[in-house]
Every structure is written in structure tokens, then in C-alpha cells.
């Protein structure tokens, strides 16, 4: 099989898809704006639900793209693209022009910038961090407060920047509940004296083995789950964090001092993806992610023939789903090359 495909974005979806396309005989150009491939996966120390190291998946993906048919352009952005007849012409930021028969966008997501929830004090108080900051701490093996001490009481806030009309994101980011549970467990393992409290609105444990992990967090690790959205964070005289929530099940307001607060930042359509959507007149959905041409059987197809999507640029997804989605994109692309394009 012959033909050329440009894959924009070298994260999980992009790498998997590039590898599969190359194996099918297509020549692939993989463009990644960062120096390194791997995208957000590189930030993960351990993955849920089985807590295997993120690096294992990363090295699988790296193996995938070792192929003669793949040309790598890292540290390179996409400025825009045009479709002339059936051909795509992609302009890169450094001025290169790449021609392709099909395009696959795997531009992924941006983490919600938690400063935007000012009342949670991210960027204002030292010991308010995000889930991604915490993964980094896990990486370095040093989980501590700004002053170097080990935190003894840790709070986790669910749904930061997701399911929140105030920041304009009405959707659920789907992964943060299980991330919270995973991180709570890991915190408990790392600092076994500490107490961990999760503040949630709903526990969305829909994935395989998630509910089991939730149960384990309660039974084995003694994590406390409190149903109530945190309304605001402050500090007291001794500079300890104080959070306010309502314990909705007890029906009373609840105040709690904490050493460390972890915000489960949600996923948002990436700025890069939005730019491409604007440049290429691609449809976006109400949640600002790319709108697939059909929710059930066209989740990889766009409103432009020959341009496909895979991964979290269409909706929040976990790694498993992202890899499957990338593979289904590959099969759509192959079909397109074989029949539709001709």
C-alpha cells in the first residue's frame, strides 16, 4: 500500500497511529511541537488502575515508531493547512511545506490551568498543587510541602475545571476521579502516617477495575471520601490551608485544616487544536473538542474528507481508550486510501 499521512501531535495517540500506519506501508510524517515525544504520558509516574509505571507504556510506544516509513519532525508546530483537490498541504511553523494524502490530528488536550479557579488558591498559596504537580513529586520521590516538611493531612479536590459552568467546561473529564483514588493510595503508600481526604461531587468509577480500586482505597488504605464540592481555600494564622465545603451527606458545613491540597485539574481542548480548528474550519463541539462526524461509527472522522482525529482531541480518554482510538483511526485511514480517495 502506498500513500502519505501527516500525523499532528506525538503523544500516545499520535505515536500509536504513526506506528500502525507505517506498518501498513504508508509513509508517515509525525509532527510534534515539543522536543520529545510522549505528550502528557511523560508526566505520569504510575498509571491507573494497576499502577504500572508510565514509562512502560512510553517505551512500548517508542518501539512502535521505530520504522523506516516514519519521518519525525519534533520541536515543530503546524501553522495551518489547505486542501487542494484530494491533497493536503501542511505548513509548518519553521516554513516547511509537507504534502500528504491524509491527515490525522492527534493534538491531545491541555491540562486546565487551575489559577483560573482563583478561590482554590493555586499559584497563591504554596501548598496548593495540581494532580500533575503531584505526579512530578512521585517521579522525584519527594512528596513534601514548600517548607520541606512531610504533609500529614492531604486533601484532594475533584472536578477542578470540569463540570463547572463558571469556567465554561460543562463536561466531565472522566479520568480525574480514578486519578484521585490512585494518587490517594500512592500518597498513603509514600507517607504512611498521612491522612487523605477526597472531596467529590460524584464518584465516577466507570472504567475496568476502577470500582475495585475505589474499594481498595477505602478498605486497605483508609482514605476518607467526603461528598461536597470545596467552595474556597484560605490559610489560617499558622499558614496552614483551610478548606470549606459542605458535608452534604451530614448536611452541615465542614471546615478542615490541611497541609497539602491537590487539585484534580480537568482536561481541555488544546490551544493548538483550537488554532487548527479555526484555520481549517473544522467543527468543534459544545465542549470545544473536535466534533466527530458521527458519535457512534465515525468517531475518528472529521467534517473534512481525508482528515481524521484520534485520542483526547475529541473527548477525554484514558490511555487504553486512546490507543484503541488511534488504531481505529488507522483503519479508517486505510479504508479511505483504498476506496474513498480514489
Amino acid at each position, binding site marked *: 500500500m502506498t500513500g502519505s499521512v501527516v500525523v499532528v501531535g506525538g503523544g500516545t495517540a499520535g505515536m500509536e497511529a504513526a506506528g500502525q500506519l507505517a506498518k501498513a506501508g504508508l509513509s508517515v510524517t509525525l509532527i510534534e511541537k515539543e522536543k520529545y515525544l510522549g505528550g502528557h504520558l511523560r508526566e505520569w509516574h504510575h498509571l491507573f488502575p494497576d499502577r504500572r509505571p508510565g514509562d512502560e507504556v512510553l517505551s512500548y510506544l517508542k518501539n512502535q515508531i521505530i520504522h523506516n516509513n516514519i519521518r519525525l519532525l519534533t520541536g515543530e508546530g503546524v501553522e495551518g493547512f489547505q486542501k487542494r483537490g484530494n491533497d493536503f498541504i501542511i505548513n509548518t511553523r519553521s516554513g516547511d511545506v509537507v504534502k500528504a494524502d491524509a491527515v490525522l490530528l492527534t493534538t491531545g488536550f491541555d491540562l486546565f490551568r487551575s489559577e483560573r479557579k482563583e478561590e482554590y488558591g493555586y499559584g497563591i498559596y504554596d501548598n496548593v498543587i495540581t494532580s500533575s504537580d503531584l505526579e512530578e513529586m512521585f517521579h522525584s520521590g519527594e512528596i513534601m510541602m514548600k517548607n520541606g516538611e512531610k504533609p500529614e493531612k492531604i486533601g484532594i479536590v475533584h472536578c477542578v475545571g470540569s463540570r463547572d459552568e463558571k469556567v465554561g467546561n460543562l463536561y466531565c473529564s472522566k479520568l480525574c476521579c480514578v486519578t484521585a483514588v490512585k494518587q490517594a493510595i500512592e500518597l498513603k503508600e509514600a507517607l504512611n502516617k498521612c491522612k487523605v481526604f477526597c472531596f467529590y461531587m460524584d464518584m465516577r468509577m466507570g472504567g475496568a477495575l476502577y470500582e475495585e480500586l475505589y474499594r481498595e482505597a477505602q478498605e486497605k488504605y483508609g482514605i476518607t471520601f467526603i461528598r*461536597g*464540592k470545596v467552595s474556597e481555600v484560605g490559610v489560617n494564622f499558622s499558614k496552614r490551608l483551610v478548606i*470549606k465545603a*459542605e*458535608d*452534604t451527606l451530614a*448536611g*452541615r*458545613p465542614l471546615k478542615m485544616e490541611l497541609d497539602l491540597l491537590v487539585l484534580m485539574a480537568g482536561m481541555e481542548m488544546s490551544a493548538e487544536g483550537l488554532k487548527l480548528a479555526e484555520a481549517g474550519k473544522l467543527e468543534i463541539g459544545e465542549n470545544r473538542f473536535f466534533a466527530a462526524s458521527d458519535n457512534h461509527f465515525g468517531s475518528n472522522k472529521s467534517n473534512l474528507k481525508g482528515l481524521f482525529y484520534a485520542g483526547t482531541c475529541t473527548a477525554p480518554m484514558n490511555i487504553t481508550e486512546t490507543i484503541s482510538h488511534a488504531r481505529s483511526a488507522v483503519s479508517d485511514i486505510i479504508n479511505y486510501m483504498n476506496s474513498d480517495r480514489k
Partner: protein
Amino acid sequence: MEKFGFTLTKARVIDYDRNDHSIVDFIMEREPSFKACIECGCCSATCTTGNFTGFSLREINVLLKRGENDQVRKKIKKCMLCGKCSLVCPRGVNTRNVVFVAKQAFQKFDNYAV
């Protein structure tokens, strides 16, 4: 000590079918965003009144929806209409107007001045 057996107490069940839903219908018509509340408690957590008394806007919301108006009637005038709650509500419920319209509803349907 709880007294039971000696005084007549109302059953604890919410008698949904016999409860009066005219108040909640009135509110939902005049402030449709009320329907979107998911009882997350963010409003009552930030509420000054809620931190001093047994007043909880979240509880008021759910009681209204179940038709348990008597309990709401007693509490609702404690709201200062300050609007903090509407700044934090993740569902975009126009909470101040819920309180305002609820007061109106009580005035209208059972001539109860609030």
C-alpha cells in the same frame, strides 16, 4: 433525649405524593436554572449564614424539590442575598433568584410573609 411513644410525631417519610408541589413548580417556571442543581453543597459551604445556622441552600433546594415546604419556610428568610453562592455554583444555578422567588411563592401561595 428523643421523645417517642408519648407525643404524636409526624412520620419521617417524605410523603412525596401528598406534599404540595406548587411552590417548586412556581420556582422552576420563574427560575429554570433551579432544575440543574446537583446538591453539591458548594453554595452552602461558602454561605456566611450557613456557617452560623442550620441554614443550607443546598438543603433548601432539595427540600423544595420534594415538597417539604414547612421546613423551608422557617429557614429561608435567613439568606442575606449576598450572592456568594451564585459565584461558586458549578451548575450555574441562579441561586439568589431561587431564594427570592421562593419567598415570593410563599407569599403568594400561603400568604406567609417572609
